[in-house]
């Protein structure tokens, strides 16, 4: 039964990674950049929820909505100020380093406002636990909510990208930015929209992450952010189902590693997975391999 219990924990953690990874994968697929600050937007989202509930006394639902709005605006603003000017830069290192700078900026602003002490997160999602096998296996309410949220978000995003006009514009920009521009697609607006969606998802990820692991510091988002990127790479960057499956696999690997090998090297295992995947199948499980044209 402990195996199933670990598996359940793995899927739950993996679902959170998956939601973060969806944000990464969309931004990477469309803006062709690694948004290092994505994990920190999660942290901002969680802090907004915490502050809205404890300081402003808003209802949980309103707080979450507020967090989504704040993160969306934040994501779009970051893109406009820090990333857009570098989109045509001669070195692709430029935007990556800038993204690292933005990540640091968010962490340190949070540090100044909220301090370095770990805050305990409030209960936002109150769903009763599910007891199975005569109480031998308990599935926490948050676990159920997380997994359902992950599936709903993936389905919604797939529908959006495949079936709606702005979604198809995203595909076009992802495929060939210049050609999309010539076809009359507003590339800047499309990329902004991508950042908006990715950052809005980050707020939800922040809620789920901090509900499952209820401590919050300015660095809360950094590690899950990096791991979610690993998940996105694992699944094949740019692929929506890839991000979901990569996220869940990674969550399961991490929990199993923690349980069966050593909790001290669980992160090392996750990163070893990344390295192996990139070496064996650089495009990930569902990605396309693209070669530079000569």
């Amino acid at each position: 039964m402990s195996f199933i219990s670990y598996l359940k924990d793995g899927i739950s953690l993996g679902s959170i990674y998956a939601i973060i990874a969806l944000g990464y994968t969309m931004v990477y697929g469309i803006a062709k950049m690694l948004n290092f600050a994505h994990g920190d937007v999660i942290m901002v989202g969680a802090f907004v929820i915490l502050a809205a509930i404890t300081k402003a006394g808003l209802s949980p639902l309103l707080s979450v909505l507020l967090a989504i709005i704040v993160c969306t605006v934040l994501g779009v603003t970051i893109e406009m100020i820090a990333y857009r000017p570098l989109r045509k830069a001669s070195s692709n290192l430029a935007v990556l380093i800038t993204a690292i700078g933005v990540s640091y900026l968010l962490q340190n602003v949070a540090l100044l406002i909220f301090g370095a002490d770990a805050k305990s997160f409030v209960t936002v999602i109150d769903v009763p636990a599910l007891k199975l096998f005569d109480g031998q296996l308990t599935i926490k309410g948050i676990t159920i909510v997380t997994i359902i949220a992950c599936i709903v978000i993936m389905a919604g995003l797939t529908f959006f990208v495949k079936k709606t006009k702005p979604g198809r514009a995203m595909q076009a920009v992802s495929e060939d930015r210049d050609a999309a521009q010539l076809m009359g697609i507003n590339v800047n607006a499309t990329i902004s929209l991508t950042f908006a969606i990715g950052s809005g998802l980050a707020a939800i990820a922040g809620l789920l992450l901090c509900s499952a692991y209820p401590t919050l510091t300015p660095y809360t988002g950094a590690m899950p952010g990096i791991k979610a990127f690993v998940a996105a790479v694992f699944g094949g960057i740019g692929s929506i189902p890839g991000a979901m499956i990569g996220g869940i696999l990674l969550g399961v690997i991490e929990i199993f590693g923690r349980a069966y090998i050593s909790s001290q090297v669980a992160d090392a295992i996750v990163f070893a997975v990344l390295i192996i995947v990139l070496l064996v199948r650089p495009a990930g499980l569902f990605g396309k391999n693209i070669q530079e044209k000569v």
Partner: protein
Amino acid sequence: MKKSLTKTSKNNFITYAMVIVVFVVVQTLSSTGNLSNLLKGLLVPLCVYTIASLSLNLVVGFSGELSLGHAGFMCVGAYSSALFSNVVRDAIPSVPRLIIAILIGAAVAGVFGILIGIPVLRLRGDYLAIVTLAFGEIIKNLINILYVGIDENGLHVAASSAGLKMAPGGKQIMKGALGISGTGAIYKDIKGQFFLIGVILIIITLFIIQNLVNSRSGRAVMAARDNRIAAESIGINVTKYKLLAFTVSAALAGVAGVLYAHNLSMLKVSTFDYNMSIMILVYVVLGGIGNLRGSIVATIILYALPELLRGFSTYRMLIYAIVLIAMMLFNWAPAARTWRSRMVERVKGNKPKKEAA
């Protein structure tokens, strides 16, 4: 043609001279008692970070790859050399022991550079960056559970304190997350010379990097950076030269690690985290990617200033972050570049030298 050769060597000498002048000034201030203890305590770490940022610049600036695991190489150099110093503490006198420790730190970090570089350098850009980050974390994780002890039967290595199975009278040197303690004490007799040693190591680092960059191999490294396909089309083995730069950079980072480890009484793996790698990257970016003298100046300013201004340190990382973003936008955004070259032209009075294509 002669002109361009003398120009680069002149440039190199200015850099050496700058380091030496700074050293002489600081040393004079120190010996006349004009240097506070706080400042004195900063001198060796400054040398450590200067070497680290110079070596990172070789990869970021000249090889054009973003490495986010530089602290990992420092960590490997620090631990391997501190282990050596502790093992042979009574067998070899301080000066040769330190020299051997430096060579060991450089060699072990260099070997790690090769081992990590071979898989990593097959990747490009963002993936390469994230994998170097991953390797940095793996190194940290593994050293964190590594225990090494010595007794009459020789060295013992294990993943836990109990696993060492030491004979009575044996001594634990590396204690997992607690790291290695007491390395600094072994070098009490030459402790006062560590700043001098640090400066000598900076000069050696500069010598290696500047000469490498201005040689056939350095041109191959930069050609591979500027255009991989074109470099291969003229017969340059891109992977080989990227690996060369990566390895030399790792070995020099190892040297920085050695200096760091031997200046401290406590060596802990948690210091060598992602934040340290980023901090070094900030020095490189601020000093100018590919600009060695800039790396030195930026390291001195960014490292020493926040330490000196009390209370400032709360804002230190925040200011780093803003500086990093602003510098990148200013230096790399096409709009900013055009604006700058217009400004330069206006100041210089329309010289046709920098015709834009």
